[in-house]
C-alpha cells in the first residue's frame, strides 16, 4: 500500500498551521473543521500553490516537498487532481475540451477511461456545450472529470458541494463514492458539513486552528466532543453509534442497541447486526424527572446528567447525558432547568422526538 504523508508548518499573517497526518491509499478521507480552521490551506499546500515554511509532503511514496532536502516540485508536475470550491472551468472551451485539457498534458488519450468517467459523471449529453451554460451541479461534475483525467495520484475536493441544492449535493456525493470504488483513487474530501463527511468518508481528520485535533475511523471519532458544533446553521446535535438488532414488520420499525440501551426507529433498510450512526438534534431531546404516560414519543431513555452548561445569553441550558458509554446533548430552556431543579448526577428521562440515520 502506498503511503501519503502530509506534515508542514506555515505562518500566514498571525495564523499558524502545524499539520501532520498520514493517509493510506484507496480510501475517502475527510478533513473537517469550522470555517477558518485552515482546511483549505492544507489542500493548497499539498497542491504546491502555497509553500510552507517547512515540512514534508509525500504522495504515493513520492516526495513533493521536503524542506530538509530543498525539494519543491512545481504544482503542474505533482499529479494531484484538485476540485476547487468555486467552479474554475475554462470558459473559452467546450466541456469536452475542458475534460481533455489535463488528459493531453499527462497521458495518451485513453478512450476507455474517458468514456468510463463520462459515464460515471453522467455528462455525456453536455460534452459539446460551453461551460458558461452549465448549472452548478453540471459544472462541478465536469471539474471532477477534468481532475480525474489528468491521471492524478490523489483527488482532492475542497468543499465541492457549496452552492448546490440538496438533491444535487446528494448526486455529487454518490458520484464521489462511485469514483472511489471504480477508479481506485484515494480521495481527500474537505468539508465543514458533518452530514456530508459521515455519508462519504471512512476516516475523518478534524482540524482546529491549524492543527489536527483528532483523527480516526468515523465510529471512533463521533464521540469527539466538539464535533456537534460542525453542523449547518449551528444546530447542535449529537452522534451515537449502535447496532440493528431487530426489524418489526407489524409496526414498520427497527430496534437499535446502543451500548445496551434500546431505541426504536422507523424501519431502517439494512441488515440485522449492521452498525449505524444516529444523529439527534439537541432540541429534539426533552427532559422529564418521572416517566410520562400517554405520550407519542417512543424513545424514553433512563439516563444521568453528566454535565450542565448554562448559556445565559440564549436563555438555554445544554445538558450532557450518558447513554451507555456514549453521550448525547439535550438543550432545554433555562426556565425548565430551574423548574425541574436539575443537577449533575441526577437521574432523568430523555424524551427523544426524532432520530436520523446518518451513516454506517
Amino acid at each position, binding site marked *: 500500500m502506498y503511503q501519503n504523508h502530509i506534515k508542514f508548518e506555515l505562518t500566514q499573517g498571525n495564523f499558524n498551521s502545524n499539520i501532520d497526518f498520514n493517509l493510506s491509499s484507496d480510501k475517502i478521507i475527510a478533513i473537517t473543521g469550522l470555517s477558518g480552521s485552515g482546511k483549505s490551506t492544507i489542500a493548497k499546500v499539498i*497542491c504546491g*500553490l502555497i509553500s510552507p515554511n517547512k515540512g514534508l509532503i509525500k504522495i504515493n511514496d513520492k516526495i513533493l516537498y521536503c524542506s530538509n532536502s530543498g525539494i519543491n516540485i*512545481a*504544482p*503542474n*508536475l*505533482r*499529479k*494531484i*487532481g*484538485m476540485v*476547487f470550491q*468555486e467552479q*474554475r*472551468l*475554462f*470558459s*473559452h472551451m467546450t466541456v469536452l475540451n475542458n475534460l481533455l*485539457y*489535463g488528459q493531453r*498534458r*499527462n497521458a495518451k488519450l485513453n478512450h476507455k477511461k474517458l468514456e468510463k468517467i463520462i459515464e460515471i459523471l453522467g455528462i455525456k449529453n453536455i460534452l459539446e456545450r*460551453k461551460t*458558461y*451554460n452549465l448549472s452548478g451541479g453540471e459544472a462541478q461534475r465536469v*471539474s471532477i472529470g*477534468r*481532475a480525474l483525467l*489528468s491521471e492524478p495520484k490523489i483527488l482532492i475536493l475542497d468543499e465541492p458541494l457549496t452552492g448546490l441544492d440538496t438533491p444535487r449535493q446528494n448526486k455529487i456525493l454518490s458520484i464521489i463514492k462511485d469514483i472511489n470504488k471504480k477508479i481506485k483513487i484515494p480521495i481527500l474530501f474537505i468539508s465543514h458539513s458533518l452530514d456530508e463527511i459521515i455519508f462519504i468518508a471512512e476516516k475523518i481528520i478534524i482540524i482546529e486552528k491549524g492543527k489536527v485535533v483528532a483523527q480516526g475511523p468515523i465510529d471512533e471519532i463521533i464521540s469527539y466532543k466538539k464535533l456537534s458544533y460542525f453542523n449547518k446553521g449551528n444546530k447542535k446535535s449529537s452522534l451515537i453509534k449502535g447496532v440493528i438488532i431487530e426489524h418489526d414488520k407489524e409496526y414498520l420499525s427497527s430496534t437499535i442497541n446502543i451500548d445496551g440501551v434500546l431505541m426504536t426507529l422507523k424501519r431502517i433498510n439494512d441488515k440485522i447486526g449492521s452498525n449505524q450512526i444516529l444523529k439527534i438534534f439537541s432540541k429534539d431531546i426533552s427532559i422529564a424527572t418521572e416517566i410520562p404516560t400517554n405520550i407519542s414519543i417512543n424513545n424514553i431513555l433512563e439516563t444521568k446528567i453528566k454535565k450542565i452548561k448554562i448559556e445565559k445569553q440564549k436563555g438555554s441550558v445544554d445538558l450532557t447525558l450518558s447513554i451507555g458509554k456514549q453521550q448525547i446533548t439535550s438543550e432545554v430552556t433555562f426556565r425548565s432547568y430551574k423548574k425541574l431543579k436539575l443537577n449533575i448526577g441526577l437521574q432523568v428521562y430523555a424524551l427523544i422526538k426524532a432520530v436520523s440515520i446518518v451513516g454506517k
Partner: protein
Amino acid sequence: MLSALELEALKLSAFIAIIAVSASIIPGIIIAWIISKKNGFLASILNILVYLPLVLPPVVIGYLLLLLFSHNGVIGNFLYENFNISVNFSWKGAAIAAAVVSFPLLVRSIKLGFDTFDSKIEEAAYMNGASKIDCFFSITLPQVLPSIITGLTLAFARCLAEFGATITFVSNIPGETQTLPLALYTATQIPGTDQAALRLVLISIALAFISVAIAEILAKRANKRIMGNPN
C-alpha cells in the same frame, strides 16, 4: 471616385496603421502583463513611461523621435551604421510615430483585461499539468482576447488619426509620409481647395467608421466565445 492623390493617402494611412499596430501587439501584451501583475518600483516607472505619449503634446513626441532617429541620434545612428536603415522622411518613420502615440491605448486596454481576469483559473490549469508558459498561451491569452481586440481597435483608430508627431518627425511628403490627416492639412493650406478638403474629411470619417465597426463585431464575437453574452 477617389482621385489618385486621395487613394494614395488612404492606402498609406491604412498601411502605416496596420504596420504600427502589428509591430505593437507582442510588446503591448508583454508590457501590459508586467504592469498588471508586478508591483515593484520598476514596474511603476514602466507604467508611467507607457502612458506618457497619451498626455504629451504630439509635437513633443515628434521632436523627441527626430532627435533619437536622426543620423546623429542614438537609435538612428545605430540603425544607419549597422543596417543602413534610415527612417527619416519615410513611411517607416511615420509608422514609428503612429506606434508610439497609439501604444498607451493598446496597453491600457490589454492591462484592463489582465486586471479583471480571475487568476484562480490559472491555478486550475497548473493542477491539470500545464506549465506557466503553457497556461499563459492556452488559458490566459484566450481569456483576455476581447481586451486585446479592443486595444488593437483603439490603437488602429489612433494611428489613422495621427498628425502632430508625424508631421514633426517625418514631414509631409506625398506618397511617402502624407497620410489622410496630412493630406487634409495640405488641402486646407491652399486657397480654393475647399471641396478637396471636404472629400478628405468624408473619407477619413468613413475609414474610421468602418474600422471601429469591424473591431466591435470582432470584440463581441470574442466575448461571446468566453462568456456567452456579447457584452
